[in-house]
């Protein structure tokens, strides 16, 4: 369609929408609601996926070795420390260290008890907090030292550095604050050394750990190293970092039903939005049927009328999405300082924009049917 013809259609479409302000505004509100709801839900899900795999991703290793049937990072169980030495002996391994992970009771300074996920890191500090408030992360190796995140200070009852608490029945001293190390579960991550972690958790023997982390020599791929370590070990699970990330995401999002709930809400948002768009566009088109009949009679083709309806759908869609994304941007910025951030990734938002604009066009097809039923002779009968 030539540009001038398109501009003409655009002008008619917009003026028609402005003539029906109430209907147009209700459509925009519907689209804004659908976009915000869907994007926020998907943003929450992306945020959760990032949160539940943060330690795996920030550890930046190639291969993880763990007990059989470990469903996710948070549910590691003891394996013999000997596994670490076995892994180090495998050709292709450039580096390997251990990690501890266990659920513990945290007794706050005021005596109240809460659950934590205790993470113990080895000498290389791999898996330690990646962002600290002020202190250096190696305070983790001070005697009885633990690092907690500023996001969970209130929950853990800690106001300042040096405060004493108990993990299990053993003394621990808060020597550092990390920043933005979130947990998907209600139990905050608390970091310590691997040796201290094993001591705190009485279910572990002194010669047990939770994970072995390994990096490849140059020229060896993570998959090759995974296969080589698997061949060397007779029990346990060996996964590349990417596999462990997806296994953890799959567990939290699918096996717990968390992701399904979020996806359902996002889809419902899109469906409700599409229905609202469809109904209001249909009403707007029906209100203007006599005008469309006049346009047909004075020489407009049905294709041009369909073009007007589609333009209306897209204009309303774009306005709704712009308003929705502005609100989402604000809410997302506010959520960054909370334990549940809404991640607004451009690719995710782009996908939702395409789906929603597609919904607008599909919804407008209902109205297009009315255009094809118009009898131009009706201009003589009205």
């Amino acid at each position: 369609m030539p540009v001038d013809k398109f501009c003409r259609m655009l002008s008619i479409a917009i003026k028609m929408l402005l003539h029906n302000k109430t209907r147009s505004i209700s459509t925009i509100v519907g689209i804004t609601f659908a976009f915000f709801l869907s994007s926020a839900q998907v943003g929450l899900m992306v945020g959760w996926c990032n949160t539940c795999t943060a330690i795996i991703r920030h550890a930046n290793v190639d291969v993880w070795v763990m007990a059989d049937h470990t469903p996710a990072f948070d549910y590691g169980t003891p394996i013999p420390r000997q596994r670490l030495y076995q892994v180090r002996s495998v050709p292709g391994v450039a580096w390997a260290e251990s990690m501890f992970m266990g659920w513990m009771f945290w007794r706050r300074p005021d005596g109240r008890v809460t659950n934590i996920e205790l993470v113990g890191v080895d000498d290389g500090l791999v898996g330690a907090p990646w962002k600290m408030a002020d202190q250096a992360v190696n305070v983790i190796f001070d005697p009885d030292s633990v690092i907690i995140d500023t996001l969970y200070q209130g929950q853990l009852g800690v106001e300042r550095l040096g405060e004493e608490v108990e993990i299990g029945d053993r003394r621990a001293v808060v020597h550092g604050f990390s920043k933005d190390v979130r947990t998907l579960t209600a139990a905050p991550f608390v970091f310590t050394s691997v040796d201290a972690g094993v001591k705190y958790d009485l279910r572990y023997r002194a010669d047990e750990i939770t994970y072995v982390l390994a990096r490849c020599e140059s020229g060896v791929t993570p998959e090759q190293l995974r296969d080589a370590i698997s061949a060397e070990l007779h029990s346990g699970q060996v996964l590349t970092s990417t596999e462990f990330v997806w296994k953890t995401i799959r567990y939290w999002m699918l096996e717990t039903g968390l992701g399904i709930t979020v996806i359902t809400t996002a889809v419902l948002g899109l469906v409700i939005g599409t229905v609202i768009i469809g109904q209001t566009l249909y009403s707007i088109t029906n209100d203007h049927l006599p005008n469309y009949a006049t346009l047909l009679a004075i020489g407009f083709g049905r294709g041009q009328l369909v073009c007007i309806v589609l333009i209306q759908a897209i204009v309303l869609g774009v306005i709704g999405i712009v308003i929705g994304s502005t609100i989402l941007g604000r809410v997302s910025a506010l959520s960054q300082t909370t334990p549940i951030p809404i991640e607004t990734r451009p690719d995710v938002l782009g996908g939702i924009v395409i789906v929603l604009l597609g919904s607008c066009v599909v919804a407008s097809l209902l109205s297009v049917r009315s255009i094809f039923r118009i009898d131009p002779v009706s201009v003589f009968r009205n």
Partner: protein
Amino acid sequence: MVSALTCQDLTKTYGRGALADRALGGVSLAFAHGESCMLLGPSGSGKTTLLSVLGCLLSPSSGVVEIAGRRVDYGSPRSLTRLRRSTLGFVFQHAQLLQFLTVQENLGIVAQNAGMQAKATSARLEQLLGQLGLSEYAHRKPGDLSGGQRQRVAIARALLHRPSIILADEPTAALDWENGQAAMRLLVDQAKADDALLIAVTHDTRLTPLFDRVILLESGKVSAA
């Protein structure tokens, strides 16, 4: 000289079988350029159906329509749209202006759609609005105009792109006698000035003197022409 419009044995039947209703029963007419014709007839005589068929809005059941010597292809919606866009002009009983556009925009879209150049459009617009006494209402919306003013805008819309055929359906029915007569006189004079054929349906026999020819339609057939 080729006629502006001819129709030969035009029939139109609505419905089928026992419910079939024959609205046109073999109408044959020829119209010259610049001619003004009044189409008279009682309700249900087929006036609007004939106007719809001649206006390329409705397909006849049988028969042939020729515009400027070329047969109208009712099987091609595209060619019918093209004819309505450039060759035909319509004036409807209730003006049927687009309420969401100003007077100027209502006229402008017809000109743009007919492919008129912007300069020519604005000159023609100015001329017509002036002749029809609408200059000061160019930027008003139809809702802000009286019935007579709206009908004059509808006349301007029908004339703007200089169509060779103007079809008017009861253009004065919604107006009082004085306004109705003035509007019809305007329409006849303007059509004449553009050498356009005007076919106007009306019930008002007092308007007969304004026209070159009166066609009487009864039960779908021409009884006097």
